[in-house]
């Protein structure tokens, strides 16, 4: 019999997400903890952190403890498989930004690789929203389109260094610096204003799109714009339990990602919990001509948010003395814990143990 109440919040969330992805026909992808270091060196910019734990295996090959899952899945996916839909639950090893030391992070996610069509993209976005809804009642999924952001940046006709600085400002919603940098680079004032409007836009597709789409139509490919607008609107209408927002400040490395990118937030969790997008650039760099989209849910961020009631160490403490019959005591503990309670039998009561109920068990089997 499974008693999920003994699981930590992040473990329960992982279980719910795996069940969700299975329901949509995604199969579990299980992989080794190690991968050849070379894979990560060739795709360093795709990784969140380029610090990797390495070691030399018995054959003299330089190996790495996986800092990322997507690269391994793409490397091992088949070119002729049509569409491969997989999910994973794996630990990855990365340096924490703040502490500067390595951490083991439990990550759950999915990848859709191959002949990715509009339905696949919609399904992945919908599953991202459903993943957030499965974790909390108050969540937001921000979606953006790098093709649109890129088209507006192209229209500014600035050099590569300025473009990188502008992208940083976009990610920070830093309109004041963005405007100054673009103006100093000699960009057209109207186009700078349009970029600022794009980055400032944040809200439901039905609120944002009616005015934004016409404003962008002179700079952005109309098919791309209409496609994105239709996708965002259908998502807003069909998703329940998660608020879908358009937010063009969601930017990822444009060398790897293009098209739709998205980020998920849960109220009370300070950082983005879910991150994903179309990574056709990575596919190209890995010699593939087909497409891919996926996302990861960083469950380590949920440790505090979803923790169970930790005000007690156990439900019941059964205190026994030397005369207690072990078999009778074991039967008593068994009966006490039958309804799922945590029951701890002890000969002496530790000073700081927190319990709901204390039962004393005497040598004759009475409590």
């Amino acid at each position, binding site marked *: 019999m499974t008693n999920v109440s003994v699981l930590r919040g992040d473990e329960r969330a992982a279980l719910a997400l795996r069940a969700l992805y299975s329901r949509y026909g995604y199969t579990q992808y299980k992989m080794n903890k190690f991968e050849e270091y070379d894979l990560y060196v060739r795709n360093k910019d795709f990784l969140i952190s380029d610090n990797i734990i390495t070691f030399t295996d018995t054959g003299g090959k330089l190996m790495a403890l996986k800092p990322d899952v997507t690269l391994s899945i793409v490397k091992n996916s088949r070119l002729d498989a049509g569409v491969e839909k997989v999910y994973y639950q794996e630990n990855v090893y990365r340096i924490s930004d703040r502490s500067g030391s390595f951490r083991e992070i439990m990550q759950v996610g999915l990848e859709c690789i191959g002949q990715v069509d509009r339905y696949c993209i919609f399904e992945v976005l919908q599953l991202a929203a459903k993943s957030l809804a499965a974790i909390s009642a108050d969540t937001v999924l921000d979606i953006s389109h790098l093709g649109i952001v890129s088209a507006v940046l192209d229209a500014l006709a600035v050099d590569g260094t300025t473009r990188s600085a502008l992208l940083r400002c976009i990610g920070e*919603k830093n309109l004041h*610096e963005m405007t100054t940098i673009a103006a100093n680079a000699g960009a057209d004032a109207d186009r700078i204003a349009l970029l600022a409007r794009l980055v400032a836009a944040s809200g439901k597709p039905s609120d944002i799109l009616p005015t934004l789409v016409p404003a962008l139509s002179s700079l952005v490919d109309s098919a791309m714009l209409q496609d994105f607008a239709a996708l965002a609107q259908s998502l807003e209408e069909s998703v329940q339990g998660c608020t879908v927002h358009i937010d063009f400040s969601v930017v990822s490395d444009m060398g790897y990602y293009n098209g739709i990118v998205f980020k998920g*937030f*849960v109220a009370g*969790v300070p*950082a*983005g919990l879910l991150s994903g997008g179309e990574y056709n650039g990575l596919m190209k760099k890995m010699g593939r001509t087909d497409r891919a989209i996926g996302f990861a849910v960083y469950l380590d961020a949920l440790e505090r948010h979803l923790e169970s009631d930790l005000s007690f160490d156990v439900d019941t403490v059964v205190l026994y003395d030397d005369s207690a019959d072990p078999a009778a005591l074991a039967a008593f503990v068994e009966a006490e814990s039958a309804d799922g309670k945590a029951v701890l039998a002890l000969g002496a009561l530790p000073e700081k143990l927190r319990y709901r109920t204390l039962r004393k068990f005497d040598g004759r089997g009475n409590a």
Partner: protein
Amino acid sequence: MKQMLNIALPKGRLGEKVYAMFEKAGFPCPAIHEDNRKLIFENEELGLRFFWAKPSDVPIYVERGVADIGVAGKDILLEYRPDVYELLDLDLGKCRMAVAAPKSFHDDPRRTLRVATKFSRIAANYYAAQGREIDIIHLNGSIEIAPIIGLSDVIVDIVETGTTLKENDLEVIATVVPISARLIANKSGYKFKNETIEEIVRGIAAQINAKS
């Protein structure tokens, strides 16, 4: 109960000026004017909780989500690169990050430049952009004495009026970046308390625009 918006302000004169802007924007917390040593003040009616923090710690509070918004100097943001939104330049606390050296300093590009600073990342990025090889000496204070006693060739530090530099026979030889106070927001908090945050941004932006 109204959802509280947590606001981290830098302790000191800058923080007081910033609070005045919040007050003028229609987001007051009268308890803050009481003469005591309290660090946290609430206006339950408006759902506001202000707290005073060490200026360099404000981005940490905001990035970690215990503060939804806060005010921090651009120097701190450039040095620590917190993952936050930078919503406004408040046009307060204006100064610049600069390279300063003794008046007798002659830069010899054949030698590695020794740079003393509290802002290692800013200094490293500045010289990396120039392709200059440097040796960073990280100090936590009294940076001005480093070139005088031969610890470094130059310093990278915040310059307000330049008086301290002058008194130590140093002069600014280059400006790295202008600095001012910025209104920052936690990326998650911004999604869930957007209406109030945007109202504050509009109220403060109107004051900045009126001033300029």
